[in-house]
């Protein structure tokens, strides 16, 4: 087609008539298809081929140990030291025999069929290590540490320590476990080895034996250290608990009457430890991702492996790794780098300084981000309704909690629309007010020389000034400023006839209502929205207000928080759990939020209070 004015116009008309938006990569949508449904747990090998490989690896390991033992025995026979160390050799041989018995095809197959936690402890250190890597999702999980050391003495024995960083105290670990192990002159052998070791070597008040990996798992999750020896089919659980508790400060921005009173601080390991001290799950994974090319801060990505949607975890990790910037100072700043619609005012991740709140959301299938040097965690994905939940909602009875939730939503509604409603009624819809009220409003405005919109604007701006000044002024002065600003300024403004008393009332109620929103960033977004609606209502009255609310709802409907619709489960409608606007009884919380596509949809069985189905105590059968 020749390039002239006509053709240009034609192309423009064609573009206008058949407009299609520019195509970019498809946005991330957390898909409903769940390929992980029915997948076997990671700790078990998938299929027969993997089983054979596992068996082969175990046999190879056994052959290696046997070869070492044979070599050692041959050398001892040659130099005549066998008789002197006969006890040690006998114990080692017994351990090898025990390992061989477990490697026969039938017991091995049965062993693979049992849950990892129920499995016994192998005499082979590498077998134990492999099993522990499966249980604690290593090496992805950076909280749990497996450390191999050699004991002291002439015949050193390989040992394996397992502990959780952040839960175990470093000084206890060094003083009561590692140092005695390395300094011991004669490490014990055989079946009695652990008992002897606990009696003679470990200077610790609480030491207990463990014979299954489940016991080890429980101890490690409690902050203790598990100690394995090569050739010994049991472990020692040594008390090394030492996570931060009550030394950390109470929350500043999320104060509650009930619930935990500890808050995050600037130390990443303390923060992950605080979460782990509440949620003692072996498959709680903490992955560390470096953020910022120059700052190189660690960002902990926490999730429960058996619950969180793998697509969500992979997407969050992809976004984190895709940040190319010098330095990220704050976790909320980090969230802006990775969220779906960073230009919109509404927050797309929940910011919290409370470890208990993080634990609750992780248990629902969400992901938490904790940035090094920052006392706030970001929880994602979230829905609009999450921002109106409080940390103590489940500490109260459902009726009380629901009343508070409805009150918060009503407060939010008032905070958004009250000034606009006042302007609409006073400018465009006087007929909608009862005559007495209309006369009272008119009477109060009689001596004010400014239009109503100016009055509201002056008071709103004054209120925002007081609020901002209250935050910035340190210490006790902030509350004084608030009182002085609110009472004296309002009173003086009315006396000076700059504003009418009704406007003071409207702005005061609006300001008070805005404080009912628990999340600061959501409250800030609502404040900005209020000003937008204020402008629209000044020109279009209630019609404009209705149109603005429709537009606002449409924007919220379009938004996504990490692939999850922002208004889910209301728009789009999906199967809701009993904790959206209001919440049900604790024993009715059977399902996790549907929109998260969690691996395990069920949180608890239909009948979670099993005792109601049982015979009362003391009422045995006659």
């Amino acid at each position: 087609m020749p390039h002239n004015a006509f053709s240009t116009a034609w192309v423009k008309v064609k573009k206008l008539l058949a407009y299609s938006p520019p195509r970019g990569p498809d946005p991330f949508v957390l898909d409903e298809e769940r390929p992980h449904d029915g997948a076997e747990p990671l700790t078990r090998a998938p299929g027969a081929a993997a089983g054979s490989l596992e068996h082969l690896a175990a046999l190879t390991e056994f052959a290696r140990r046997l070869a070492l033992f044979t070599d050692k025995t041959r050398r001892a026979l040659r130099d005549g030291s066998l008789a002197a160390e006969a006890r040690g050799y006998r114990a080692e041989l017994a351990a090898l025999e025990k390992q061989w018995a477990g490697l026969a095809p039938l017991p091995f197959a049965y062993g693979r069929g049992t849950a990892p936690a129920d499995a016994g402890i192998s005499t082979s250190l590498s077998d134990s290590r492999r099993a522990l890597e499966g249980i604690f999702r290593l090496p992805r999980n950076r909280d749990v540490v497996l450390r191999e050391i050699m004991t002291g003495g002439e015949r050193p024995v390989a040992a394996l320590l397992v502990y959780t960083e952040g839960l175990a105290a470093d000084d206890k670990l060094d003083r009561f476990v590692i140092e005695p192990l390395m300094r011991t002159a004669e490490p014990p052998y055989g079946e009695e080895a652990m008992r002897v070791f606990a009696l003679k070597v470990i200077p610790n008040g609480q030491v207990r034996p463990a014979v299954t990996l489940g016991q080890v798992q429980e101890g490690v999750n409690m902050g203790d250290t598990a100690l394995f020896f090569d050739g010994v089919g049991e472990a020692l659980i040594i008390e090394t608990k030492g996570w931060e508790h009550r030394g950390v400060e109470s929350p500043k921005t999320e104060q509650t009457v009930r619930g935990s009173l500890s808050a995050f601080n600037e130390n990443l390991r303390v923060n992950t430890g605080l979460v782990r001290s509440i949620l003692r799950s072996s498959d709680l994974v903490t992955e560390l991702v470096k953020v910022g090319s120059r700052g190189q801060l660690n960002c902990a990505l926490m999730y429960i492996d058996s619950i969180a949607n793998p697509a969500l975890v992979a997407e969050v990790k992809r976004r984190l790794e895709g940040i190319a910037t010098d330095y990220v100072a704050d976790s909320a700043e980090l969230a802006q780098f990775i969220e779906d619609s960073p230009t919109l005012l509404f927050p797309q991740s929940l910011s919290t300084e409370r470890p208990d709140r993080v634990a609750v959301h992780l248990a629902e299938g969400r992901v938490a981000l904790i940035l090094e040097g920052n006392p706030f965690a970001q929880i994602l994905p979230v829905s609009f309704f999450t921002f109106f939940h409080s940390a103590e909602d489940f500490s109260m009875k459902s009726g009380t909690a629901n009343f508070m939730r409805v009150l918060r939503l009503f407060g939010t509604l008032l905070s958004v629309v009250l000034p606009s409603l006042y302007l609409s009624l006073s400018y465009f819809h006087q007929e909608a007010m009862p005559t007495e009220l209309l006369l009272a409003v008119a009477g109060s405005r009689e001596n004010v020389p400014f239009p109503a919109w100016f009055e509201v604007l002056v008071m709103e701006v004054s209120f925002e000034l007081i609020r901002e000044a209250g935050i910035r002024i340190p210490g006790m002065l902030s509350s004084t400023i608030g009182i002085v600003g609110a009472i004296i300024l309002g009173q003086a403004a009315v006396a000076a006839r700059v504003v009418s008393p009704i406007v003071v009332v409207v702005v005061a109620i609006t300001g008070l209502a805005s404080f009912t929103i628990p999340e600061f960033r959501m409250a800030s977004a609502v404040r900005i929205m209020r000003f937008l609606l204020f402008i629209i209502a000044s020109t279009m009255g209630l019609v404009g207000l209705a149109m603005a609310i429709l537009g606002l709802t449409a924007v919220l409907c379009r938004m996504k928080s990490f692939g999850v619709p922002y208004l889910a489960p209301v728009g789009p409608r999906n199967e809701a759990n009993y904790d959206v606007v209001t919440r049900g009884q604790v024993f009715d919380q059977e399902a996790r939020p549907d929109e998260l596509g969690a691996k395990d949809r069920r949180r608890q069985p239909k009948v979670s209070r099993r005792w109601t189905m049982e015979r009362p105590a003391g009422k045995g059968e006659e």
Partner: protein
Amino acid sequence: MTRRSGRMGTGEGIGLAFAVSLPLVFLTTPAYLAETAGSASWATPILGGVAGGALLYILLLLTGRYPGDLLGLSARLLGKAGPFLIGGFYFAVFFATACLWTRQFAENTLLTALPAAEFDNVLLWYGLSAMLLAYLGIETVGRANYVLLPFGLGGLALVLAGLAPIANRSTSRPSWGTGWPPWPLPPSCSSGRAARWRCC
């Protein structure tokens, strides 16, 4: 999971159906039609609906068979003049329906809700809202309508409840008011039953 991401669901469909049909209740067109066409006014929506349905069917048939946009399709089927004809037709339809209706809605808004507002302001706000909603897309609009539907219907119910004391209920059913017209009922009914209902 019951949500179908990226696909229109029943909820969105209901929202869109209400969004399209509910504002028409407040238009003066039906009243004007009844006034001018009298007892034949029923023919207009029926014939219009049949014609619109047939047009839609043909469009679906053609776009299913030939990929591409409407202008490319018309150029392929009707030659070089095709895009101008079809584009011009749809431009005219767009102006006739969207723009003129916007004007009518704006006029009605001034008459019923905002007598003190500027006509240009109202037009501007309607235009901006339409732009925003068009930008956000049909799925979002359907979803937003679905979310707001209970509030809208609740508001209407509230208005109706407020008007209930002054409502003339005798016009709610033909049998309560002027009675059934004589032609749809057999003679016995038109004399006996209808007369009895009229007394109720």
